[in-house]
């Protein structure tokens, strides 16, 4: 026994010496690994197996050993590892290291098999090890389980599609993407399906009711690279994490150990999500992750964590070593911006402001770049400009400028003539230009003539008055301006009705006329321009020259004319424009009358106000009446009901509709509406109906009803009542004769 232990100690010491050798120079690895493998095999003592497993795990993960060499060593090492594993190995420490080694070997072997499909024994060993590990996953002690998680993460990483760069196939990461479709050993669908299943098993730790913090943390910490490098499964993983609430794992009683566990899971989940978001701030799930982080914090505070209550406010650091404080202070630490002095002699503005010494950079013309690209660059750059650097840069330029000023002050200004005035173009010099700017220009310009002091002190410049416009010219210009506003109407008023309805709904009573810049706004503008703007001017005109209407074509009338035509162009669609306009006219008439009345009281003389409402309402009515047909009832009724005042001439015009038997109903219904809902106009409308009743035979049934209801005392109806039956018959006969007469009349 003593012999064997002594022997063992010797062996371990030798092995350690060998390890020190390879750590010092990785070139010895092939030799040492091959030498060591027989000693640490399945049949050796526990200490040797432990040592060997750890050594192999270290070897195949070492960043000092090139992957190609690891690949070469893998075949023999796999055989040993498999034998040890199938012993079956029971020592957790050995097992743990074997699984670690397997996790490092898997991508290496996978890559080797892609390129060497003939090495089927190597793949068989690897697969056997993989299957063995997966079998042990659930039943092993936690130390081994944790490593199984990592192993599975590696398998998933290898057996999913990664990004590939066809230009540099050697650099591509090992993944399904580099497996040829027709590989004899590696079947793509099978491997992919296996990975998918393993990933589900890996993520199941987040769904279980009672997961151990150790396993959860081990999983969370291994997932970052999968999310980062495997687009196809990234969102699935993140969603699994989002559904995981560590606080739910807190079982009663909440022992301190449970508290440690919950807090650790919460913080690890948070660290993972922050890691993802830092790498990809525009991640589609970023906002969800942010919310989840906040929720985690909240739930932790509520449920298990009372440590936050234990600790009082943080005490101010005694020696200013705290980083959050330091960040503001290190104005000294970054190298100062080097502001090179300006070259002697005259300098240009660009030289003054150029702080970089890089000739390529300073000769680069930014104007070559498209504006939108520049905006994309400049805005983020401006957002993170370092205050102190900016300050230094500004100071640097200021220093240069002051130096220049001093130099120039020292030089006496050379006397020169004024003949080069032309260059200066003083007309366009704004008179309130800042004094320093003028100085600067003087001081910096290479032209010595500009130093002339009296040039700087030019007096204010006033633009000459334009030649007076003749009245015709003014009117012409006015008309073209109006024409342009109508163009605006045409371009902005595509869907007038719906647009108007919506606008009104949104704005309600607080609406300001003409504030929305849609068609209505322009119409309001035009109608007021026509009605209010020239108010008062016309009065004078009329007074001074009552004579012929040579002067009648004022700007407002031309606007009215244009509005009139505009409305008639599409009466059905623009009836609201007409209503609005007529309302403005009526309102303006009232205001004018009121104003003139108040004026007259003082002056005590006769005066007249030009009234537009009656004139234009009749004109408009006359304009579209011929085009109304029986289907326009609604539009026509709307017009009649919304214009501000119904006058007898208007009712006469409406009544005239009854001339056309087709429009009798339109006529009677419009009048009936006015009778019912416009009491001030009721009498005149009834008169009109009576008139219609008597004049046009065809209107009798409809008009008779209205009269019977609203004016039962009407003599016309009373006469008609008894012979109603007969007229019905006679009218059908007469109608053919009557109609042409009615139309002609």
């Amino acid at each position: 026994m003593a012999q064997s232990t002594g022997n063992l100690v010797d062996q371990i010491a030798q092995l350690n010496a060998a390890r020190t050798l390879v750590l010092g120079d990785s070139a010895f690895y092939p030799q040492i690994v091959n030498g060591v493998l027989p000693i640490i095999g399945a049949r050796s003592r526990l200490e040797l197996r432990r040592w060997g497993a750890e050594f192999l795990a270290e070897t195949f993960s070492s960043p000092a050993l090139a992957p190609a060499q690891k690949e070469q060593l893998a075949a023999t090492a796999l055989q040993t590892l498999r034998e040890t594993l199938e012993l079956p190995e029971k020592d957790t420490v050995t097992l743990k290291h074997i699984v670690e080694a397997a996790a490092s070997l898997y991508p290496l072997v996978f890559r080797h098999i892609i390129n060497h499909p003939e090495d089927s024994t190597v793949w068989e060993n690897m697969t056997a090890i993989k299957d063995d590990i997966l079998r042990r996953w659930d039943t092993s002690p936690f130390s081994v389980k944790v490593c199984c998680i990592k192993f599975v993460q590696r398998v998933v990483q290898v057996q999913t599609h990664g990004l590939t760069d066809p230009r540099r196939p050697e650099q591509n990461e090992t993944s399904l993407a580099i497996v040829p479709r027709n590989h004899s050993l590696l079947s793509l669908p099978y491997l992919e399906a296996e990975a998918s299943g393993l990933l589900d098993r890996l993520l199941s730790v987040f769904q279980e009711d009672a997961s151990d913090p150790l396993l959860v943390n081990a999983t969370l910490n291994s997932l970052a690279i999968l999310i980062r490098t495997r687009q196809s499964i990234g969102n699935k993983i993140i969603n699994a994490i989002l559904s995981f609430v560590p606080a739910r794992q807190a079982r009663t009683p909440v022992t301190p150990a449970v508290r440690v566990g919950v807090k650790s899971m919460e913080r690890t989940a948070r660290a993972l999500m922050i890691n993802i978001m830092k790498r990809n701030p525009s991640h589609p799930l970023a906002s969800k992750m942010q919310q989840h982080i906040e929720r985690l914090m909240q739930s932790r505070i509520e449920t298990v964590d009372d440590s936050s209550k234990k600790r009082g406010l943080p005490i101010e650091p005694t020696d200013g070593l705290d980083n959050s404080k330091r960040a503001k202070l290190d104005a000294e630490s970054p190298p100062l911006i080097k502001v090179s002095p300006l070259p002697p002699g005259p300098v240009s503005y660009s030289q003054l402001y150029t702080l970089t010494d890089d000739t390529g950079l300073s000769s680069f013309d930014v104007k070559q770049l498209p504006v939108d690209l520049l905006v994309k660059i400049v805005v983020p750059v401006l957002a993170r400009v370092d205050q102190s650097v900016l300050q230094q840069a500004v100071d640097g330029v200021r220093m240069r400028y002051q130096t220049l000023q001093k130099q120039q002050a020292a030089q006496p200004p050379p006397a020169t003539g004024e003949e080069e005035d032309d260059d200066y173009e003083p007309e366009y010099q704004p008179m309130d230009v800042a004094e320093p700017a003028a100085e600067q220009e003087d001081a910096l310009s290479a032209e010595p003539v500009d130093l002339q002091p009296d040039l700087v002190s030019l007096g204010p410049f006033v633009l000459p008055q334009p030649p007076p416009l003749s009245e015709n010219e003014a009117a012409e210009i006015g008309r073209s301006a109006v024409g342009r506003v109508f163009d605006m109407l045409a371009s902005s008023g595509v869907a007038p009705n719906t647009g108007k309805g919506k606008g009104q709904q949104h704005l309600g009573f607080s609406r300001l006329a003409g504030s929305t810049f849609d068609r209505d706004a322009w119409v309001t503008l035009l109608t007021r321009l026509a009605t209010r703007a020239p108010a008062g001017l016309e009065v004078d005109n009329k007074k001074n020259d009552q004579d012929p209407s040579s002067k009648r074509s004022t700007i407002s009338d031309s606007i009215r004319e244009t509005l009139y035509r505009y409305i008639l162009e599409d009466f059905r669609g623009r009836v609201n424009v007409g209503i609005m306009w007529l309302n403005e006219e009526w309102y303006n008439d009232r205001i004018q009358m009121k104003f003139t009345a108040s004026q007259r009281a003082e002056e005590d003389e006769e005066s007249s106000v030009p009234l537009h409402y009656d004139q234009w309402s009749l004109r408009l009515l006359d304009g579209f009446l011929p085009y109304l047909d029986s289907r326009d009832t609604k539009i026509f009724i709307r017009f009649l009901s919304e214009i501000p005042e119904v006058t007898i001439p208007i009712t006469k015009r409406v009544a005239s509709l009854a001339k056309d038997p087709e429009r009798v109903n339109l006529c009677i219904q419009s009048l009936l509406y006015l009778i019912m809902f416009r009491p001030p106009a009721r009498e005149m409308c009834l008169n009109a109906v009576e008139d219609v009743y008597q004049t046009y035979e065809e209107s009798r049934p409809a008009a008779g009803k209205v009269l019977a209801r609203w004016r039962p005392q009407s003599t016309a109806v009373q006469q008609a009542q008894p012979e109603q039956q007969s007229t019905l018959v006679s009218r059908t006969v007469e109608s053919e004769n009557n109609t042409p007469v009615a139309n002609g009349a």
Partner: protein
Amino acid sequence: MAYGPRLASAGTATPDPPPPPPPPPESAMAAPTETESSDGTAAAPIQEQQSDSYKLRFCTVCASNQNRSMEAHLRLSTAPSPFPVISFGTGSLVRLPGPSITQPNVYNFNTTSYSQMYEELFSKDERLYRNNGLLNMLERNRNLKWGPERFQDWVPGMPRVDHVSKGDKGALGTEGGVVDVIITCEERCWDAVVDDLMNKGSLLNRPVHVFNVDIKDNHEEALVGGKAILELANRLNEAAVQERKANNPEGWENGTGEARRSFDEKVPEILAAWQEKWPNLPALWTLAWL
């Protein structure tokens, strides 16, 4: 200042000009190298010691690899039964207080030695840096290892044999460039370490327990924290040794039930028990991958 006496003891244990590896008697057990092959006859006791002398490998981390991580480094590497230990900082630069709060002394990681910093500060203002403890701290640090190292620049698994030959304290056992436990001294550093390990892609497939022990960044708290970290290390190591013994077929009957539970599994409980004793050093843990 406060650690003056302890510093002196550390100084005596290791003479300041670091000569080729000075193997103190206890380190022979820690890492059985050539020294052991010479006395192979002392079989039985050695075997017992060997399992007993199993040591977890540690890594301590703070912001600048100066105060807290180095205090812990000192503690772990000079314990009665010393641990293999390496240490890092997670900051972008090594920052030390300067004459005023706005004038810190800033150095690069990996390329500036503690000695250089010591000389520089010494020549700048000896009195100031003596009084605020910086020179003492650098003195301690330069006796432990060459200079501050940045965690993000560490390549796990890259052999660190040269650190052994340079005489870095705690270097024995870390030749392989791997550790079993990382202990940070501030949550920000823990976050940085966990994040960086994810970025590194866990190429070694090797589990590593990452702890945070929140220590305020001053000399006094660093002393307390170092002590607490050593205790945590001892507790963890005890569990790890037990695992190796219990699963040893020769010691099949040595442990049952609780004792047979693996080391990794016990970590939350160990930390919870430790936290009860050190309630003012809030701790955090996860299992990450190197």
